[in-house]
């Protein structure tokens, strides 16, 4: 069977789930952020694939570019926050950041 839309979608779905898994299980805040990047990439693959395979013009590609740019901005801020927490806690393990609870 030749490669079609579904193949790309399956690939994206796998990537998405791997990202979810990383976000939930990794203690290290930076690896959690990496997991989020996986999720975003999965969505982007969807966008570009739909843009290619369905009658939709280039909207999907444009969307993907916007996602990449905002992801960069979000990553910059998130990292700044992680480093800031590191200065307080001397650790970037998320399970140690639990003073707020209940």
């Amino acid at each position, binding site marked *: 069977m030749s490669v079609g839309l579904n193949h790309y979608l399956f690939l994206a779905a796998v990537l998405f789930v791997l990202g*979810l898994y990383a976000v939930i*299980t*990794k203690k290290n805040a930076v690896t*959690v952020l990496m997991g989020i990047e996986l999720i975003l990439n999965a969505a982007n693959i969807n966008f570009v694939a739909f843009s290619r395979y369905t009658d939709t013009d280039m909207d999907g590609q444009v969307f993907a570019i916007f996602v990449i740019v905002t992801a960069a901005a979000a990553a910059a801020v998130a990292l700044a926050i992680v480093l800031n927490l590191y200065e307080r806690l001397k650790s970037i393990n*998320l399970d140690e*950041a*639990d*003073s707020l*609870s*209940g």
Partner: protein
Amino acid sequence: MITSAILILLLPLVAFIIQIFVGKRLPRKGDWVSTGAMFAALALSVGIFIDAVAQYEPNNVLATATWDWINFGPVHVTFGFLIDNLTAFMLVVVTLVSSLVHLYSIGYMHGDPRYNRYFAYLSLFSFSMLGLVLVDNLFGIYIFWELVGLSSYLLIGFWFEKDSAANASKKAFITNRVGDVGMFAGIMILFSITGTFSFNEVFAAVADGHVGGTLLTVAGILLFFGAIGKSAQFPLHVWLPDAMEGPTPVSALIHAATMVAAGVYMVGRTFVLYTPDALLFIAYIGTITAFIAATIAIVQMDIKRVLAYSTISQLGYMMVGLGTGGYTAGLFHLTTHAFFKALLFLGSGSVIHAVHTQEMDEMGGLRKKMPITFWTFLIATLSISGVFPLSGFWSKDAILASALGFGMTHPAHMPIFVVLLLSAGVTAFYMFRIVFLTFTGEPRDKKKYDHAHESPLTMTIPLVVLAVLSVGTIWWGWVEHMLVKPELASYGSHVASAVEHAAEEHGVAHSAHTIAMFSSVVVATLGILLSAVVYFWRKISADAWAEKLKPIHTFLWNKYYFDELYAATIIRVTLFKSRLFAAFDLKIIDGIVNGTGRLTAAFSRLQGSIDLRGVDGAVNFVARFVGYLGSQLRGLQTGNIQAYIMMALFAVVLLFVFQQF
């Protein structure tokens, strides 16, 4: 007339605003502002009342005024006044009792550090109650209803330094809210069907048959939930005895004339909405309340608590009156009760003021020291006991006749009458118990007795005025003419049939009257005599009888095992058992004496324990369960962000599953 109505409403409101902001700086801390405003409102109310009498007609609507409050789309709310005979009556009752309580408070609250605040709250309370009486729609009645709740909260907790007072006010507020939720739901059901809140339009919609059947029954019962809360009906009556923690004049105001009357008034105002089933529900709730509260009252030693339970009991009577179709009887009892119960509370306040205790154990022989208090108190007691020809006799007799008439036409419901009659005897018994324990015999606490003195004039004048009103043989004539049951023929078919069951009784009621009158006099006399035997002549010793009747304990114990089972469905069996034992122990100590007395007492003890442990327990159980649930859910918030993410994802999967199936 509308101008007077607006003034009546504004006077206490303005007094409240003045008192709360500048009261402290006024001469005499401004007590004259509130009191003056109230008396002015009284004068205006009397004016309206005289008009009502002058243009007398049954169900006469004297004046209405409606303003658009908000008007667009689906929600159209008007604000307006409706003044008819019922309103005129209630205005006089509320303003009269309230003014007397104001006057009385000047003496009673003298020297309190928050004197001006107290009067501010009183004014707010009167404002809310008058608004409740005046408005012409369900929406308005709900708002003022809540305001009444709020101001009672402030007044009951007035001495918040006492933990018990702070807790009592919270309990009152929350218990009332439970009922209010039902009421709100009832109002919203009516609104959702008729699209209006106005009494007239809702009634008209009911008359046209737009609303009917089960839905109307449900709406009526839900509305009545509000009254269950405010008028302290079973099973939400638990707040009222605790609410005695407030200053005594407040008790008189809240528990005699206004707050508790609000529920009865509301049922009267919306009388035509209730289907036969809803009315029957009301009647039975009233019966249960009347009996339970009366039996509990027998064994209380705190003078104000006895009065509190007696209020609950009398409110039950009023509900029975309304529920059995005796519209006039129920509202009449509301009026007479307002006066004699206010008198009883103010009288007890006078006693408490003199001896600085509420325990009847520490009183006795006060008759000589406080003659005015004694005589007025005695008049009120005779009245509440239903002794001819005092006001209480007429109104209670009317209710009994209504119940009997209902029982005669529907024999299955005869027990209502029987239970009420029994309760009437019990009422006479426990009321005279107060009189004997407090005013006669040897002083049990010499020091307190020596210290006692008659209260100042500001306190005794209200007593005398109320005593005169409690005698009021003339009342009945007025009321019968003024408060005629709404012309139901003009309303739709089902309501007509609903009230037919009462209407046809009217014929029966006449013959029922004679029987009811006779039997109630007999029962009252028996109750008084019994009380006198035990507490005045002291022919029977409590302790001796407690010993003799030991087998009866066991018998009672087994008999009420069913009740215990019933209660155990609410709380855990073991817990209840141990508490029941404790309740019986208590009973042996200060138990009651004579055969009947013994039985009734045991019964009332049990009722009391079901009441305290069972109902309170149920309320507490629900509260605790909700709290437990909350703390369990709180456990989800572990502080770990990844756990949150996982739960959210899990929920996403769940939502998906939910959406698919």
